[in-house]
């Protein structure tokens, strides 16, 4: 308890009330616990095992003493007593087994919660940065305008920056709203049957201006249509995340994104292949975790909200599909593959006429 209090007090003073409240919650994680959870876990298991052993030992001793008493008093040696010893041992074993199992489950849950706390802390750190940077920039330009009379040309350029900053703020707040919508399942939009190839194409047409200067191509060598029940707003959210990631995490002069529709066995593979910074093998699965970001949050080498790919994965699952990440290594681009079950009927080209 004292440890927790210290954890709260040593926090820097320049924090928003929101941060202070959340930091208080995580003081447990920030300060060093007295004992490591694993140590506590091992001790409790040892204690339970020892008490189990002692119970049986004493029980056997007591019954042996009782038998001796029975012998001495020349009463009929009770047959039931021997049988009962085994029942008692069996019942005790089962009970101890349940206790151990319970301990183990609590331990696992505790570890998971702890992990989530840590991820959430990272999230708060990087997300406040994502919110404060555009605000700081906006404020800086507004104050500059108040102080100096800049030529119209310059003004327009800086106003352009401010619009970008406002867009960035909108984007970040929308990301949180998206998360809330998906988690509470209150997303709007109807589920409609649509051709995925067309959906991706029209998405790109509508948002082309966002990806100016990058080379985005959609290939579907089979020439078939792939009909799926999709939720257009959600599906667009998924595409927006994959498109933006390909361009954002990209150090090439011309960011490239190739989208390929490929039926493979019983699945349709939609590959999003970019020439971006790639990712190491150890991160292939982790990038889809909620709040997860490559890079540490302490030194702010991580950027963004850590929610994009989590949203992508959730949306893929809602569409009965899944998504995987692959990369040949750092700097060699990455491939995100959306896999959806290939329905025989739904994927036939003549299905188009029925729609």
């Amino acid at each position: 308890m004292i440890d927790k209090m210290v954890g709260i007090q040593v926090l820097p003073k320049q924090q928003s009330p929101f941060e202070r409240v959340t930091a208080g919650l995580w003081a447990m994680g920030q300060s060093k616990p007295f004992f490591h959870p694993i140590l506590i876990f091992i001790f409790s298991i040892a204690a339970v095992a020892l008490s189990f052993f002692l119970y049986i030992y004493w029980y056997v001793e007591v019954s042996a003493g009782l038998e001796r008493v029975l012998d001495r008093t020349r009463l009929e040696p009770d047959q039931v007593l021997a049988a009962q010893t085994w029942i008692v041992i069996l019942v005790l074993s089962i009970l101890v087994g349940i206790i151990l199992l319970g301990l183990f489950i609590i331990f696992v849950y505790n570890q998971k919660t702890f992990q989530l706390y840590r991820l959430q802390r990272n999230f708060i750190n990087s997300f406040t940065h994502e919110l404060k940077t555009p605000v700081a920039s906006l404020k800086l330009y507004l104050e500059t305008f108040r102080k100096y009379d800049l030529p119209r040309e310059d003004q327009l350029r800086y106003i352009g920056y401010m619009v970008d900053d406002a867009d960035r703020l909108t984007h970040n707040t929308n990301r949180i709203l998206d998360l809330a919508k998906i988690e509470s399942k209150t997303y709007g939009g109807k589920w409609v049957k649509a051709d995925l190839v067309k959906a991706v194409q029209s998405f790109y047409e509508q948002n082309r201006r966002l990806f100016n200067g990058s080379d985005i191509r959609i290939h579907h060598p089979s020439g078939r249509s792939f009909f799926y029940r999709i939720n257009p707003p959600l599906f667009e959210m998924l595409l927006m995340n994959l498109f933006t990631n390909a361009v954002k995490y990209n150090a090439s002069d011309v960011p490239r994104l190739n989208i390929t529709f490929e039926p493979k066995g019983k699945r349709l593979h939609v590959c999003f292949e970019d020439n971006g910074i790639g990712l190491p093998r150890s991160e292939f699965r982790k990038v889809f975790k909620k709040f997860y970001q490559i890079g540490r949050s302490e030194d702010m080498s991580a950027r963004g909200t850590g929610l994009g790919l989590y949203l992508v994965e959730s949306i893929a699952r809602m569409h009965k599909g899944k998504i995987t990440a692959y990369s040949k290594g750092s700097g060699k681009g990455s491939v995100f593959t959306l896999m959806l079950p290939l329905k025989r009927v739904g994927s036939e080209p003549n299905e188009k006429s029925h729609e």
Partner: protein
Amino acid sequence: MRKAMNDPPKRRILVVEDEAHLAEGLKLNLSLKGYDVRIAENGHEALELWKEWQPNLIVLDIMLPGIDGLSVLRSIRLEDERLPILILSARGSPMTG
């Protein structure tokens, strides 16, 4: 500029900031105040410009991709103990360091 005798040399300020908008805004303000300002987007660039350009003051962001601000600060302090360095804190409000 510095060659002209009657015009005093402009003081040089190196702004180390990876957020382009913030960097430009700082440059704009400092330039309007009459300083010669250059921007470094990351730790590497900062160290390079510090050696080559020899600024009179460094405005340093702590959160940088690659080499972070504190490492940059340490590297500079090993060789130059007197160069004033202004740290921009992680939370967007300025503090001296």
